[in-house]
């Protein structure tokens, strides 16, 4: 299934609202923050008027050394409810957020791999995200986030844009009166470890920053595992589409509805008698265990 961005908001307000979200979509939030209290702890998930959010990747932020911190977090809400989502990132002294609706990702447990990294009080010009484990699937969405601060700062830290291989979603280059922010994504088509490096040109001393990366699985392809193919399909989250199975021509065994209701999620153990009935009545190929 192809992963696609349906809509996104970037902003620095207390709340961000997406309207017209489709049922089952994946919502993601990348948030870069500057914190003057709260300590060296990872950012907490945002709240939402519909549904709960989970941490995708949120590490310990970079520290200035006097109680100020800068970093980022990546969060997600799988199988989102349809309609309006008003999302409130964790309160901080300053933040820049990117809220996205994606279609084509798994509805159940889409998060695959993640990593994060941070650097305290330095004069460097790059920050890695850390490297994830090998992704579980060929086709996945990869999100990255970065937050950089400095006590004085400059109006343009000189980001390298885009980050190699990624599409930029939000870039804020000012870390004098804002938090320097970089949010981006890419969609991969082969398994492997994932990482990214943010680069900039400002060599000012006492910078501190944090970066994160997370990958999300695409939904299963609609493999024709049963039937004559014309209606055989899976739901977007990989479960069997019972309605489509009922509509297949030449097959209507008595009691099938109850059987499916009871056994659908345990399909690996398809009863031999049912398997035989299916084969007799539908000229279908059954592959028990695929679901």
């Amino acid at each position: 299934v192809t992963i696609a961005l349906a809509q996104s908001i970037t902003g620095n307000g207390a709340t961000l609202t997406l309207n017209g979200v489709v049922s089952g979509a994946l919502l993601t939030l990348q948030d870069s923050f500057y914190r003057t209290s709260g300590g060296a702890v990872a950012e907490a998930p945002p709240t939402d008027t519909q549904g709960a959010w989970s941490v995708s990747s949120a590490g310990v932020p970079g520290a200035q050394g006097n109680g100020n911190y800068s970093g980022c977090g990546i969060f997600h809400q799988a199988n989102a409810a349809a309609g309006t989502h008003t999302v409130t990132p964790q309160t901080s002294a300053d933040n820049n957020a990117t809220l996205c609706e994606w279609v084509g990702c798994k509805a159940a447990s889409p998060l695959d791999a993640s990593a994060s990294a941070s650097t305290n009080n330095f004069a460097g010009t790059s920050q890695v995200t850390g490297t994830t484990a090998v992704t579980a699937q060929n086709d996945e969405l990869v999100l990255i986030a970065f937050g950089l601060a400095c006590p004085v700062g400059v109006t343009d830290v000189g980001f390298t844009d885009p980050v190699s291989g990624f599409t930029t979603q939000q870039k804020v280059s000012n870390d004098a009166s804002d938090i320097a922010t970089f949010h981006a994504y890419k969609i991969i088509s082969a398994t492997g470890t994932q990482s990214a490096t943010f680069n900039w040109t400002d060599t000012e001393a006492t910078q501190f920053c944090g970066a994160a990366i997370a990958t999300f699985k695409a939904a299963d392809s609609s493999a024709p595992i049963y039937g004559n193919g014309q209606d055989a399909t899976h739901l977007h989250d990989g479960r069997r589409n019972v309605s489509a199975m009922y509509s297949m021509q030449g097959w209507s065994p008595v009691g099938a509805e109850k059987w499916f209701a009871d056994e659908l999620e345990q399909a690996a153990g398809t009863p031999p008698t049912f398997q035989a009935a299916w084969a007799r009545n539908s000229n279908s190929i059954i592959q028990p265990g695929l679901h």
Partner: protein
Amino acid sequence: VTLLFSGTVNVVNGNLQTAALAVPGDIKQPGIPLQLRLRFNEASFPTGTTTINAQLSMDGGSTWKTASMTCVKPSTWKGPAPHFWSLGFTLGQNDNPTHARLIVSAPAQFNLVGTIEAV
């Protein structure tokens, strides 16, 4: 970048709905989402919660898709002023917005100072 609006608008009684601003057809690149980008100086905002709604239409202004953000004053900021509330709104890469619109709801009258761009 195409500037759709720049300047000051009086938000009378705390409510504003701009006219539909035409998005020039030549700035949308095939396969690349068009972003509506708003940026407003926070100094002029009234105390309390102001809601900014960014809207995009793909049918000449008949129907609208909306993104919104709340701006709470007083708010903390890093570094010295000026500070800006910023809001961006992007649809899918194959969506082709024709018009943009801004709706503001604030607790009191104020002068909104900023820019609206299509990128």
